C-alpha cells in the first residue's frame, strides 16, 4: 500500500515536472523582463528552500487560509509541491543543456530554411536531451529518495502533526522562519556559484 502510493507520487511528479521544466525554462529566458524575473525568483525559492518545507506550506496553507479539510487534498498537495519543485531543477538543467549547443547548429538550420520551432524541435531538442540525460538521471534518483521520505513523513506523520497543530492553535511561523534561514543560506551559495560560472564564461 505505502509502496504503491510512493510509486504513484514518483510517477506523477515526473510526468508533470519534466514538461513543466521546459515551460519554466522558456519563462526563465523570456525576453519579457518581468516574466524572466518572476521565474528567476520562483526557481531560486524552489531550489533555495527544502522540499519538505514547501510541502508543509502546500499542506497547511489551504488549511490555515481557508480552513479546508487537509484529508481532502493532501495527495494533490504532495504532487503539486513535488512537481513545482522538480520543474525548477529540470528548468535549470535544460537551460545549461540548451546553452551548450553551438551557435553553428542554429545558423546551419537557418541557412537550410528551418523555421524557429522546427529548429528547436528537430535540431536542438534531440541533442539537448542527450546532453542533459545524466543530470536528469541524478535528479530522478534524488526524487526517488524524496518521494519515499515525503510519503513516510507527510502522508502519515504530518497528518498527525497537522491535527496536533490544529488542536493547539499554533501558527506556521516557525516553519517560515526556518525556511527563510535555509533560503538565505542557499541564496549565498547560489550567488557564489554564479560568480564561478561567470568566471568560466570566457570560453564555450
Amino acid at each position: 500500500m505505502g509502496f504503491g502510493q510512493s510509486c504513484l507520487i514518483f510517477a506523477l511528479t515526473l510526468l508533470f515536472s519534466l514538461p513543466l521544466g521546459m515551460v519554466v525554462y522558456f519563462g526563465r529566458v523570456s525576453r519579457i523582463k518581468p516574466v524572466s524575473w518572476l521565474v528567476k525568483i520562483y526557481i531560486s525559492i524552489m531550489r533555495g528552500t527544502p522540499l519538505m518545507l514547501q510541502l508543509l506550506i502546500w499542506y497547511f496553507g489551504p488549511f490555515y487560509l481557508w480552513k479546508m479539510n487537509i484529508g481532502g487534498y493532501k495527495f494533490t498537495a504532495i504532487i503539486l509541491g513535488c512537481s513545482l519543485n522538480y520543474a525548477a531543477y529540470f528548468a535549470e538543467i535544460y537551460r545549461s543543456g540548451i546553452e551548450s549547443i553551438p551557435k553553428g547548429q542554429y545558423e546551419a538550420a537557418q541557412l537550410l530554411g528551418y523555421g524557429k520551432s522546427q529548429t528547436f524541435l528537430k535540431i536542438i531538442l534531440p541533442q539537448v536531451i542527450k546532453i542533459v540525460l545524466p543530470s536528469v538521471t541524478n535528479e530522478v534518483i534524488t526524487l526517488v529518495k524524496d518521494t519515499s521520505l515525503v510519503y513516510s513523513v507527510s502522508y502519515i506523520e504530518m497528518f498527525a502533526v497537522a491535527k496536533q497543530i490544529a488542536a493547539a492553535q499554533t501558527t506556521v511561523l516557525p516553519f517560515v522562519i526556518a525556511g527563510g534561514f535555509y533560503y538565505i543560506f542557499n541564496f549565498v551559495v547560489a550567488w557564489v556559484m554564479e560568480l564561478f560560472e561567470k568566471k568560466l564564461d570566457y570560453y564555450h
Partner: protein
Amino acid sequence: MSLLEMKHIRKSFDGLEVLKDISISVKEGEILSIIGPSGSGKSTLLRCATMLEKIDGGEISYLGEVAASVKDGKELYVKGEKRKQISSYFGLVFQNFNLFPHYSVMKNITDAPIHVQKRPRAEVYEEARALLKKMGLEDKENAYPCQLSGGQCQRVAIARALALNPKILFFDEPTSALDPELTGEVLRVIKSLADLKITMVIVTHEMAFARDISDRIIFMDKGVVALEGTPQEVFGAEHARMQEFLGKFNA
C-alpha cells in the same frame, strides 16, 4: 543582371567598424574568391550576404530583389514568404561543417529538402544518392558525422547545401579546419562543382586553389575591397599590402 549585389555595406561590432562601405556583385555562373588577412572582414561579409548578420548600412539584393536595405537609419529586411524565397537562392558551407550530429549522413542531406521544401521523398533520396556519389561518399549514407573524417564531413556539408538547389553557394574557408592531407579531397570536390556552372563565392586561404578556380578574385583588407580582378591581375599586382599578404604564404 547580377545574381548578388551588395552595395555600400557597413557593419560594426560594438564600435569596431568591420565592413566599411564595401560593394561587391556576383554574376550568374561566376566563381569569385575572396582572400585577405585575418580580421579583414571576409567572414562578416559572407554572414551579411546570407543574413546571419544584420547590416548597419547599405543594400543587399538577389536577382534584383532587395533582401535587406538600411538607409538613413531606416531598416528593411524582407519577411515571410519573400524572405523564404530569397533565402532559398543561397547556401553556405561553414568552416566547421555544422552538420547535425544526431542525423545520419542521408538525413542531414535529405531532411531540409523533404520537410522545408516539401519535395517528394523518393526524388530527394535519388538526388541525394547522386550527390553522395559525386562527393565520393556513396558508402557513407548511413554513417553519422562523428564516424567521418573532417574532409568527409565537409563533403557531406557541401552535399547538404547542394541538395536544396541554391543558385549561389558561399564557402567560408571550407578547408581551414581540416588536416593538410584532407584539404585536397575537399578542394577537388569544389572544383568539380565549377564544371556544373554553379555560382560560387569562396573565402579561402588556399592561394593556388583560388588562382586556379576563380573567374575573379577580391583582396579584402581592413573592411574594404583593396584589389579586384582576374587571378592574373590580382596576384601580379604591384600592391604593397597584397604582396605583403602573399609573402606570408610563401615564407
